[in-house]
């Protein structure tokens, strides 16, 4: 019995001693749950008397680079992928004297080949693209596709005709953003169709733009349209001209052009921000017929108020299909509509499940 007690006491003293005189240690492990790699979990075995720890890293250079100073014993930090990195911890006491140093083993992080956190979005992408592609291929087989009439799109020809009759120009503004925005590309596609109409009716076309790349792309589009209508003689590169990148300076320039030249038809098709109402109201004040279309939800109310016709949301993106009447384009619109139906069904199911406190369905749509 006595021996047992002495043994226990010795073990206890040894543990305390080990704890009291434990060596400082640092462990660095690549975070396995991070698909992009980069992330390392640092764990510090604490040292008695240490109040703060300075952590540094080394990637094989002579110099140790600072990471941070902390009192936390576990934290995450980032390193470059595929670069062996070593970490050093320096324990400091309250007077900032160095108590001890320790170095970790080398750690290497690697990015994965698939970001599993985005699986739900990958599946959604497959469903959406697959549906749209399916209906494009069906349309190719000459299946007739019905699209509901959109007043704004039917008014395009009327507007250009009006400008021709009045002997005044057509003004087309493809938004104020650059080619990296899909709305700008949609605007340019619509410009191509409008240019065909102006070539056919011999109406003057002016296209002020806010970005140089849009100017170049717009010129190509308009030129191709005029050539396809057999009127290359009517095309001039100065039809598409640049004013300025600045939002309100561009609005001022377009307004000035509207007030001086008084176009009979104004098309505002693209990405707009706050300057939308300034342009639309000025167009209204000169008595022009205005057709607007944008993918900016906050500007739609202004266009609806000030313009004669407005293409709202999807109608703007579907315009090229309507105007071009290509079966493949019509098929893609049908595909979009089917996807919308799927989303509406999902929304309905989500509302029902949430109402009954069943949250599993919502979790399918959570991303990171």
């Amino acid at each position, binding site marked *: 019995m006595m021996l047992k007690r002495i043994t226990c006491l010795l073990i206890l003293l040894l543990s305390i001693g080990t704890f009291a005189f434990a060596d400082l240690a640092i462990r660095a492990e690549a975070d396995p749950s991070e698909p992009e790699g980069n992330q390392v979990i640092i764990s510090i075995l604490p040292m008695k008397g240490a109040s703060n720890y300075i952590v540094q890293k080394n990637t094989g250079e002579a110099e140790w680079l600072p990471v941070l100073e902390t009192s936390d014993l576990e934290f995450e930090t980032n390193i470059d992928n595929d670069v062996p990195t070593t970490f050093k911890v320096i324990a400091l006491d309250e007077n900032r004297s160095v108590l001890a140093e320790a170095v970790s083993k080398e750690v290497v992080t690697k990015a994965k080949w698939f*970001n599993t956190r985005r699986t739900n979005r990958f599946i959604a992408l497959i469903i959406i693209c697959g549906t749209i592609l399916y209906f494009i291929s069906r349309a190719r087989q000459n299946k007739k596709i019905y699209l509901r009439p959109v007043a704004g799109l039917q008014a395009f020809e009327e507007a250009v005709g009006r400008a021709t009759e009045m002997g005044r120009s057509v003004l087309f503004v493809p938004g104020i953003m650059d080619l990296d925005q899909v709305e700008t590309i949609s605007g340019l596609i619509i410009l*191509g169709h409008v240019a065909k109409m102006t070539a056919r009716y011999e109406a003057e076309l002016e296209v002020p733009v806010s970005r*140089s*790349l849009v*100017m170049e792309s717009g010129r190509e589009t308009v030129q191709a349209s005029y050539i396809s209508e057999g009127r290359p003689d009517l095309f001039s590169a100065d039809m598409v001209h640049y004013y300025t990148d600045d939002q309100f300076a561009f609005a001022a320039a377009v307004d000035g052009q509207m007030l001086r030249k008084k176009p009979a038809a104004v098309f505002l098709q693209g990405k707009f921000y706050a300057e939308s109402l300034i342009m639309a109201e000025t167009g209204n004040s000169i008595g022009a017929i205005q057709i607007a279309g944008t993918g900016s939800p906050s500007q739609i109310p202004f266009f609806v108020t000030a313009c004669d016709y407005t293409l709202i949301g999807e109608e703007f993106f579907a315009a090229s299909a309507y105007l071009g009447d290509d079966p493949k384009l019509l098929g893609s619109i049908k595909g*979009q509509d089917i996807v919308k139906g799927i989303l509406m069904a999902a929304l309905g199911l989500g509302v029902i499940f949430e109402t009954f406190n069943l949250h599993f369905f919502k979790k399918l749509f959570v991303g990171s």
Partner: protein
Amino acid sequence: MFWKRTIPAIIVAAVGVIMLLSWFIPHAPFGNLEIHATQWYDIIASFAMILGALNLLKLQGTKVVKRQKGWPYSLAAVIAFFMTLTFGFFIKGGYYPNLIDVGDNPEAVYQKIAEVIDEDGEVTPFDMGEARMLYGNPGPSGEKINLHKAVVSKKTAQKIVDELEELGATATLGELNWGSHVQGTGTYYRWVFYSFFTPLSATMFALLAFFVASASYRAFKIRNAEATVLLVSGILIMLGRVPLGAYLTAWTQNISWLSWLHLPTIQEWLYQYPNAAGARAIMIGIGLGIVGTSLRVILGIEKSFMGGD
């Protein structure tokens, strides 16, 4: 045709698919592709700006030379263009005195510095405190301590240096670096920004207030049921959003069954429920439209924006 149509279409398709997949593939080389591609685009767009600038000068210059209708506006545009270009790249201003040592008469030196940094024409204890704080301790190896406020002309800055030297301080003439002169005080560029660009931009934005009034007057008519709903909700939000609405309906807060009539409460409910629902629906539609258009562009179905059919 091959170089103008087919090659661009192949590039669009290849880059489109790679960029789409790179969002799901963190491994190199896909992982940072999105960031690099955006930066490449910014560089290309920046250089492309030269094309736009030349086009602007050509069109506006032609109007001036040929004295076409509205040529004074074109002249103003051309002058503004060259003025900003000059102040951005050739003449910057931004001179300042470098104070190395305050000398034996520090209070007089601080008074002089306070006069320079003062902005409202009256040297206050705050300005004196600033001067002492900024220049009380020149660096041990005599490193230069800059005035936070530079002046435009070299002559004025040199005059300040001379005056500081007369008071017993040691000072030299400094100049803001190219690049930091864009935001630095006392530069011509900053003067153009605050004297021209800022008031003009603010004025154009302010026009919206007037245009909203005239557009509302013209458009908000009770033509049918939907227009009536639009009208009523518009009025409720316009009044509920400003202190006047809260002030006019403050009395409803004292009667529990009428508290819902408090305009800000109605306005917030309209904002957060019907309005947010409608906005979400439109955003979903726009999102789908963007996906559809992007797919058509990537697959080469839509080529007209490149000059194709």
